[in-house]
């Protein structure tokens, strides 16, 4: 393959649907107030399950502007993605795109899980049959099994005819999809990419699968205080749903049209720990390496990081792992840098959360403030950084490091920088 470009990438639009908030203004309002959106599961009766708490989105497809045909056709996660993509495009102010030069990079970890479970119950007569009858088969069943239709729907919503990708790297999908989209612009395969992620995993099979490995919280009696990243009393993550999509543009083109630039995607890197599908070593080595490479790409010294948006899932092994990774990559500066986990408020929406956290990072830059880690009363002694407990803080934010960690061993890091004029 011959000459490739090395262009810079700006984020010029965002759309977000997070628990407790619809749209970026409500989302920031929730984050800056330190309000939690975790609650007892309402989508089904959670009483048979070990963990009965989740962060649900009060999403009404009709009032979100989806047509009855779209609602029938699209899985819930796809609906989230399409709504956010439309909002991001509108937010970007792009007057028209060149279809051939516009790409899509959509992340999701479990994609059509909700629809799969619904159809499973129909086809199996609520689990009674192993061999199923084709009588009640819906044509969408193929797309629930093979969910690349999610990216196709976003492409149709955006009018994109360039490279269209669905990135499914588990819980780093939300960072990796934006990193992938940025790579398409950087190398010249596209000029505009609508990138981001959506996941709607609050469905019995997913809840049961995390119950089985005791990864999720059992604070069922205090659902609004169930997600406690870095706190000594935390006992697992809170499952969530959500989505965030962004418009990525080649930087000089964005400037030429006078677009509002939230940030530049300065650097992105991903590494694997090659250790365990769900386990993490305490040393944070691979995440630290991803951080080091992302900073290097962004030509940013570690000391310039103003804020770290942590993965902060609220499992003991994660919180210690990434605390070690920050120290390993930033040295003494890790102790001087505010670190917070918005999962304390909006839970862990698996493949979507990385994008939701990018949205939070951009809003921190916009508002010159960092969101808090809610429910952090007494930190785990092994987590000794500044996790911005309970209250948001005004803070100079020009450079953000946001990280993700996921099953399969994926460790990702993105550096967002203010695009100097």
């Amino acid at each position, binding site marked *: *393959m011959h000459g490739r470009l090395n262009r810079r990438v700006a984020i010029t639009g965002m759309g977000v649907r997070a628990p407790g908030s619809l749209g970026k203004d409500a989302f920031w309002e929730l984050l800056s107030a330190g309000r939690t959106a975790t609650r007892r599961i309402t989508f089904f009766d959670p009483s048979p399950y070990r963990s009965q708490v989740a962060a649900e989105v009060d999403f009404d497809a009709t009032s979100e502007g989806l047509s009855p045909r779209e609602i029938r056709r699209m899985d819930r996660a796809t609906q989230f993605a399409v709504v956010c993509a439309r909002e991001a495009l509108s937010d970007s102010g792009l007057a028209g795109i060149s279809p051939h030069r516009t790409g899509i990079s959509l992340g999701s970890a479990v994609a059509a899980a909700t629809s799969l479970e619904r159809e499973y119950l129909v086809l199996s007569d609520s689990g009674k049959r192993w*061999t199923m009858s084709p009588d009640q088969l819906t044509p969408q069943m193929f797309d629930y099994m093979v969910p690349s239709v999610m990216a*196709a729907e976003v492409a149709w919503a955006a009018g994109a005819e360039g490279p269209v990708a669905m990135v499914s790297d588990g819980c780093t999908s939300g960072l990796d999809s934006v990193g992938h989209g940025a790579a398409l612009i950087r190398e010249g395969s596209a000029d505009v990419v609508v990138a981001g992620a959506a996941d709607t995993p609050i469905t019995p099979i997913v809840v049961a699968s995390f119950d089985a490995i005791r990864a999720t919280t059992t604070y069922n009696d205090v659902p609004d205080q169930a997600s406690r990243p870095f706190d000594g009393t935390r006992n697992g993550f809170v499952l969530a749903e959500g989505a965030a999509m962004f418009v990525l543009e080649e930087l000089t083109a964005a400037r030429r049209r006078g677009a509002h630039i939230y940030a530049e995607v300065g650097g992105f890197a991903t590494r694997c720990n090659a250790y365990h599908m769900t386990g993490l070593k305490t040393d944070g080595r691979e995440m630290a390496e991803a951080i080091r490479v992302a900073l290097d790409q962004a030509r940013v010294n570690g000391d310039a990081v103003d804020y770290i948006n942590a993965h902060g899932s609220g499992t003991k092994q994660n919180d210690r792992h990434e605390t070690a990774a920050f120290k390993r990559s930033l040295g003494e500066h890790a102790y001087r840098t505010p670190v917070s986990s918005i999962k304390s408020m909006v839970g862990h929406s698996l493949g979507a959360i990385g994008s939701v956290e990018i949205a939070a990072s951009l809003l921190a830059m916009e508002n010159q403030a960092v969101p808090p880690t809610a429910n952090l009363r007494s930190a785990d002694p092994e987590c000794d950084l500044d996790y911005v407990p309970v209250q948001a803080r005004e803070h100079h934010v020009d450079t953000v490091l946001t990280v993700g960690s996921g099953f399969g061993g994926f460790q990702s890091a993105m550096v967002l920088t203010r695009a100097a004029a």
Partner: protein
Amino acid sequence: MSVITGLGVIAPNGLGVKEFWEATLSGRSGIAELDRFDTSGYPARLAGLVRELDSAEYLPGRLLPQTDVSTRLALVAAQWALEDAEVDPAELADYDMGVVTANASGGFEFTHREFNKLWAHGPEHVSVYESFAWFYAVNTGQISIRHGMRGPSSALVAEQAGGLDALGHAARTIRGGVPLVVGGGVDSAFDPWGWLSHLAGGRVSVDLDPATAYRPFDANAAGYIPGEGGAMCIVESAESARARGVQGYGEIAGYAATFDPHPDTGAPPGLRRAAALALADAGIEPGDVDVVFADAAGVPELDDAEALALRELFGIRGVPVTAPKALTGRLLSGGAVLDVVAALMSIQESVIPPTFGTATVPGDYGIDLVTGEPRPVPVRTALVLARGRWGFNAATVIQALGDRS
């Protein structure tokens, strides 16, 4: 430059590259009656089935209970590819090796069992492995862990086009400075629910004769046969291959992906544009292409659209076209990777495998489809095409080594 130095093939018509290639040239098909459950109530009953592979022979026992059949096939394919490339992962730095797989259906049979346990017996019966045996990143994660590969890694979903996207992204990762990437795709979903889901797509052939059920570009084409398996490739920088003293099969010289306009617009699909962009990426002209490995949907309107794209790009009967996947069925993420393997073997052995089963190509298709017998002809450059349901198009140019200055 990205060189492919190792191949691990798990195809319905052959295990390992040698057996697969012999079957591809001799016309041995892997399409047979699906016999893993009672299919009598289903309108379609043929599938491309991987047989006679005992994963327990190749994989450590602890991996068996935690993996779906598709992941076991992917792990064996990756192991064979590494062996074929004579890679000892212990000799490379861990961040110098990445994994990029395409996946389309995840650990579907595994998760079907867990759905069944949940709803028939209760949540406490769900496996501790369900949370990671199901999701689409599972093959990337398991390959990374098994071989100590800590470099940049990813998983992509684009139905049948995903395999080329994975190899394209592997090449992108190599350009980014990583010396070696395991790239490819493997899928399998032939439990009763998976089978129904294939049928839900509406394009599976209901013909019950394995010899005629999937006849891409034939005047009587009436759908495709789903298959399982796929292939993993060792994609390596030229410097890394040279340093290890391995030659390699060929080069990934160009890649591009496009997406079709919305079906309601009536605008032409994006396959031709993907092909043209891949040729441009490789810095070559249509006239440089010696063979096209077609997507070969086996559905008349899609065959027609692909034939039109080929005519527009190469002229009427301007290039030999073939579809060895007629012997395997369409493998979701694995199919296009098998085509890349076949393209590399065509280059190695100067022969184009035929499209078995296809007898009568409509004249107005205007394509030179290789049928009946293998066609001995020098092959230095192959174009591999793939389309994923709803509009994904991918094209990859594979070239003989030493062809470029």
